[in-house]
């Protein structure tokens, strides 16, 4: 007897699951707001961001020169700095106050100051110093100015050493000028570019944030539409927790797996971001990430009362979440407390895992920690979603029973009269 009942319950559950799944898909496609968050935004936003950062690096940062030395040597130095791709010398000023005025008027971001005794010191075998004043409104300006000047001064130094070494052959001069060579290898972001570093993180974050917005909006809308302002409708198909959670989750997953593939595989190709990871690994990784995000968003959505409130609550979180993920501010420098807080969000593991898989060509083995963490999150947020929905079903049921009772009472009093 019990066996048949159980089997019937299962088949009924599966039937309801697909009923709910179909309903949710319809909601996504018919509701403009939800469609915007769940489809349009994930398609357009990555393109917009990639467009903003498309140039990767800052070139030709404007700078002014105060050349007190005014000798062939100092002019050669300035020429070499100007020839670097990083710096563009826009003016020569007679003194510092003049140069400062250009900075104040936002004409330039740095002053290269060459002292009067520059040439004298060089020719008498003493050290000399070039001072570089940098406007700190943007660190990339500073970086460009320092890099260009350092590179030119090192070359200059090497030339001087070669001349001083009094060697007989060029090769010997070269060796005594720099007895040890060194080379720098920039891994995984050869242009040292801004887009290559930031966009992959933004792409992953967008998936989580649009899910939060979309599912939140769906929940808020459901509450506004339903009698008693409950999340769960009065409908016999919405009778079990598992069928609701699975039905809705499946609908989101199906829409998002396609979008996720577009976001993590196609967008980097369009903008030629470094991507050396295997596509298979990316897909294997994105599955638990999506699942974790969906259940996380479903849990959070229970707090949303209105159609519009998810925007007010979730939009601003993108900024802290990007920083806490350890991409821009290095993870090793994130304080202990915030590190643990960051474990709450799927985006932390998603971003860290994806960047290493995609940009750095790691295998799943190297991102095992993130991969496992995402599956654990999937489990935890699935459970929490079930609890939340169970609770919501009970509330909805209570409202129905109350309504039924009061209706009955009304009828009874009507009869008495």
């Amino acid at each position, binding site marked *: 007897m019990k066996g048949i009942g159980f089997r019937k319950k299962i088949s009924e559950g599966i039937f309801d699951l697909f009923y709910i799944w179909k309903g949710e898909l319809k909601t996504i496609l018919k509701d403009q707001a939800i469609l915007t968050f769940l489809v349009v935004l994930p398609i357009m936003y990555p393109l917009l961001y990639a467009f903003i950062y498309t140039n990767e690096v800052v070139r*030709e940062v404007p700078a002014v020169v105060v050349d007190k030395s005014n000798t062939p040597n100092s002019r050669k130095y300035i020429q070499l700095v100007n020839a670097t791709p990083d710096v563009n010398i826009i003016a020569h000023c007679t003194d510092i106050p003049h140069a400062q005025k250009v900075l104040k008027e936002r004409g330039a971001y740095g002053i290269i100051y060459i002292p009067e005794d520059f040439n004298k010191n060089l020719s008498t075998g003493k050290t000399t110093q070039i001072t570089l004043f940098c406007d700190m409104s943007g660190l990339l300006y500073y970086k460009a100015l320092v890099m260009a000047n350092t590179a030119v001064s090192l070359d200059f130094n090497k030339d001087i050493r070669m001349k001083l070494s009094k060697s007989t052959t060029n090769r010997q001069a070269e060796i005594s000028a720099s007895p040890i060579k*060194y080379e720098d290898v920039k891994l995984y972001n050869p242009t040292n570019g801004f887009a290559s570093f930031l966009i992959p993180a933004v792409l992953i974050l967008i998936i989580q944030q649009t899910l939060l917005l979309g599912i939140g909006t769906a929940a808020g809308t459901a509450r506004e539409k339903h009698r008693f302002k409950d999340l769960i409708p009065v409908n016999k198909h919405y009778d079990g927790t598992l069928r609701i959670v699975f039905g809705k989750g499946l609908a989101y997953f199906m829409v998002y797996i396609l979008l996720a593939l577009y976001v993590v595989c196609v967008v980097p190709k369009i903008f030629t971001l470094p991507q050396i990871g295997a596509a298979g690994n990316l897909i294997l990784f994105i599955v638990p990430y999506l699942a974790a995000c969906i259940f996380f968003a479903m849990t959070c959505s229970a707090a949303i009362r209105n159609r519009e409130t998810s925007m007010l609550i979730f939009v601003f979180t993108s900024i802290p979440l990007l920083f806490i993920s350890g991409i821009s501010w290095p993870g090793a420098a994130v304080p202990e407390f915030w590190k643990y807080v960051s474990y709450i969000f799927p985006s932390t593991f998603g971003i860290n895992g994806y960047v290493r898989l995609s940009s750095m060509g790691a295998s799943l083995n190297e991102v095992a920690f993130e991969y496992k963490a995402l599956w654990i999150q999937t489990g935890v947020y699935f459970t929490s979603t079930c609890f939340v929905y169970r609770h919501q079903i009970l509330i909805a049921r209570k409202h129905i029973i109350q309504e039924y009772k009061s209706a009955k009472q009304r009828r009874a009093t009507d009869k008495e009269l």
Partner: protein
Amino acid sequence: MTKNYQIGLGATIRREFKRLYSRPLYLFCMIIAPLFCTFFFTTLMADGLPSKLPIGAVDLDHSSTSRNLLRNLDAFQQVDIIQQFNSVQEAKNAMQRNEIYGFFYIPEDFASNAQSQRQPTLSFYTNDAFLIAGSLLFKNMKTMGEMASGSATLSVLLAKGLTKEQVQAVIMPISIDSRPLNNPWLNYSVYLSNTILPGILSLMVLMITVFSIGSELKENSSRQWLRTGNKSIFTALLGKLIPQTVIWLLVGGFILVYMYGYLSYPCNSGILPMFLAMTCLILASQGLAIFIYGVAPILRLALSAVSLWGVLSFSISGFSFPIMAMDPTLQVATDLFPLRHYFLIYVNSALNGYSIGYAWTNYAALLIFMLLPLLVLRRLKKVLIYFKHID
């Protein structure tokens, strides 16, 4: 119908305070979220500059020279050699596991090659997928490479009989003394929080302004709101915005006092010009929000538009990635974002201490944002009277 409404500006203000008080959402968006972010960003980057970034070393030389080199590198504030690897591949794998941000490679027979003038090559690998960490390491490792080369020259020249002073001049005839103006510590929190925090506040102002107007329509209370405002759209709007503005000013003022007072971030203009700038940012954001709602009086649409505006501000204001490196069309578009102007005012005043005169165009731009609602007042009144809320 039975209730007699009080009308006028005062009554509208009282009405708005009641509305703000009645929904926890306002408390969250207007006070909790901005203050949380203030606390978050300033504690996240409390160190200013990341220190002790974990790196590795691949030492195939195993000589006293190579060990000495690594010890010197480890002494740098910003790096911490946490592990030795036997090969480049091993080190790369550790990088992929996120254990290290870079590593130093010393080839076989390094010391003996250097001594016999065969010019060996040191290599350093940085992970630039993490741009900040990669750049910092690059700087340290480059200095280290230069020092290694210099010390080898030093021993040769000393052997040739030059004095120490002469040797110094040979190794580094020209040195660069870089002076980062007004942020000599290269403090990232100074650099980022100063714009991110006002940016988050501005985002919240944009959204709440739109939401508070749009929800009147949604709750069918817009006519009653207008009646309370003596049927003048001007009074009604003013009455609605004054209570919000007071709260925003308090929160914005707190952020400034916290940054420039408590955390002593550079504020070379004194704090008063920054109060003025913050006030202008808040009012400009409110102006922009009303304008957008006036143009598209559908709550959901206007909210989407302002949140897009607010979020894009962070990229397009150019405080992390400079405007000059963006597409020319974007460079023009930056003027449409209040945060861009606030950022330039901040750089001009608090960071560099230049006179306000140099930033007058930015103040003028913010003023234009404040005046934008005038263009849509009439339309807005019509909307409030005749329009129905659209989902």
